[in-house]
């Protein structure tokens, strides 16, 4: 069943009098539980595509359905609600609210969703344990390393068990070892919780991890490759990177 369905999506930007075509009629379907990477060079339109899927931007033309909801006609408030309840976000860096601890950052989403305190605390603590930050729950972002911060961001993105997690170049500011650990974690969560992950990246390592690799150039999809043995490959890489984490 498709979680993302895109038909002839166009996005144009006005750039100093010149209209820039960021997306030129993209058609794409992403099934639930996929671990997909959108790859391409800078300016290829991958972040634009991710932003449109996340309801952070409005398309110029085309249809966009996410988690059964057609985004084109949704108000800002409805889009905000959809982001809160259906989508988890992971950004490149400086992702977290600096005045909140790791636990509070994760709890924040549940709090916005109106989950009661005891339940919030239980789920947030549990998810932080899952991402390997049991000892860091009371630390603020500045007291965490870049990799740990991204793990908190992952925990925050999945704590409410959204149907879809959008990750915009999540490993861009991490070294290879830390980035690999983070991908292991997300891949594991993808498998265990059947959460759909959609990355934008130009990182070779992310492309290797992805079960499906969509290449975008100049706002158009030029290839869409599904790797048959990707899950096995992911498992293999996961065990390898866990060793190297230490």
């Amino acid at each position, binding site marked *: 069943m498709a979680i993302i369905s895109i038909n002839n999506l166009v996005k144009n930007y006005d750039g100093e009098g010149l209209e820039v075509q960021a997306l030129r009629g993209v058609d794409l379907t992403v099934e639930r539980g996929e671990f997909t990477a959108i790859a391409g060079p800078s300016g290829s339109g991958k972040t634009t595509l991710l932003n449109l899927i996340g309801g952070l931007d409005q398309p110029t033309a085309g249809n966009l359905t996410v988690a059964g909801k057609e985004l084109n006609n949704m108000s800002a408030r409805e889009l*905000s609600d959809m982001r809160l309840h259906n989508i988890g976000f992971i950004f490149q860096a400086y992702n977290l609210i600096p*005045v909140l601890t790791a636990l509070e950052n994760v709890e*924040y989403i549940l709090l916005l969703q109106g989950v009661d305190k005891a339940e919030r605390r239980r789920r947030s603590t549990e998810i932080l344990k899952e991402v390997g930050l049991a000892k860091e729950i009371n630390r603020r972002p500045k007291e965490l390393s870049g990799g740990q911060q991204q793990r908190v961001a992952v925990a925050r993105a999945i704590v409410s068990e959204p149907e879809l997690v959008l990750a915009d170049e999540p490993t861009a500011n991490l070294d290879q070892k830390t980035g690999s650990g983070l991908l292991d974690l997300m891949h594991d969560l993808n498998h265990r919780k059947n959460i759909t992950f959609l990355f934008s990246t130009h990182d070779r390592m992310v492309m290797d991890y992805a079960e499906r690799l969509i290449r975008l150039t100049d706002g158009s999809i030029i290839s869409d490759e599904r790797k048959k043995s990707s899950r096995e490959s992911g498992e293999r890489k996961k065990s390898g990177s866990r060793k190297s984490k230490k």
Partner: protein
Amino acid sequence: MKLMKKHSIEAMLAWRNVWKNKRRTILTLLTIMVGCAMIIFFRATQDGSYEKMIDDSIAANTSHIQIHEKGFQENMSIDYAFAPDEYPSIISFLQKSPAVLATSKRIHAGGLISHGNNTFVVLIQAVDPVQEQKISNLHTTVQPGGRYLTPDDRKKIIMGATLAKNLNVTTGDTVSMISQGFDGSFAAANVEIAGIFRTRNPRYDQAMVLMPIAQAIETFTMGDYVSSIAVSLKHTSDMETVRDQLRGLPESKGLEIMGWDELIPELIQAIVMDKLFGYIFYFILILITAFGVLNTIQMSVFERTRELGIMMSIGTKPSQIVIMVMMESVYISLLGVLLGILIGSGISYYFFLHPFDFSEYQKEMEVFAQVTTVFPAKLTLNNVSVTAFFTFLAGVLFSIAPARRAAKLNPLKAIRQL
């Protein structure tokens, strides 16, 4: 409580954001504190000074309430007099009212006073020497070598120091007084100076003569008539109530019953003007503190553009952003105001105990008809609450603009900022 619970996350985030940049927050707090404390202190000084000036004026001669025949205050003539016996309900009220401390009958007349070749226009005020001492403190200003009037005094007067100096007379000298009697007859008498007073009020010291009322009844052929009844109250604050009660009596129709605020309009006018300038000054101070808050909140929002963008991206609603940012200004303004109240009240209390004393410059101040030379600060609940409220309100109101701007951020553009 429900509302607080609902917005607990915004409140918590706001509190932590406030302390994220401690130095800036402390500087803003200091700005609000200083502004609020200055306003409280200046207002306390004003309130204390006004009260002291009014009290001094009341105590010198004005009294809290005066009762005259209608038209007296405008004409200040001996022709406007009334017989107290014809107003039994008013006299009875004055005797029975628990708010009334004392009353004193007075006769006022204009006249000329001469000694040798010197002649001056004077205001003659005839008083009951015993009752008058309960009303006015003028008897305390009689200079050494002289004395105040007694009920048995006849053909005796006391006069202001400046007048005595101008006439070139001293205690024990005899002067001639010429005036008009109540019946239109010529009134004249040679009187002895029993004492010379110095009230520091130039109007009194230059032109006022006091004589016993028994003598004045004779000299001015007053019969049972008096120019006024001066009323002293136990508490100045009771004036309006007592005045209204007196005005409510049917017998008051032919009389003018005036409170101190109507008897010393020039002082009240000066106070009103001073208050007006004070309000302008306070308004500017409040604006400065509010701009301090605005700057802090604006900077704080600007610095957190990316953070706010991420918060909005993950589902924080614009209204929650507005509440969070405004809560920051609520915390800063509240803390600043509380500190301001503490400091302002502390300083005001110190100057209540140790008033500003300009006695050294008494002579210079007399030139400007300034009788009061000691100015205590007076802290009132109205001063503290109104100052605190407006300082707080201005701080919060000035944060609406940055809060709205934060809520209107485009999450996509915001998260691109570093």
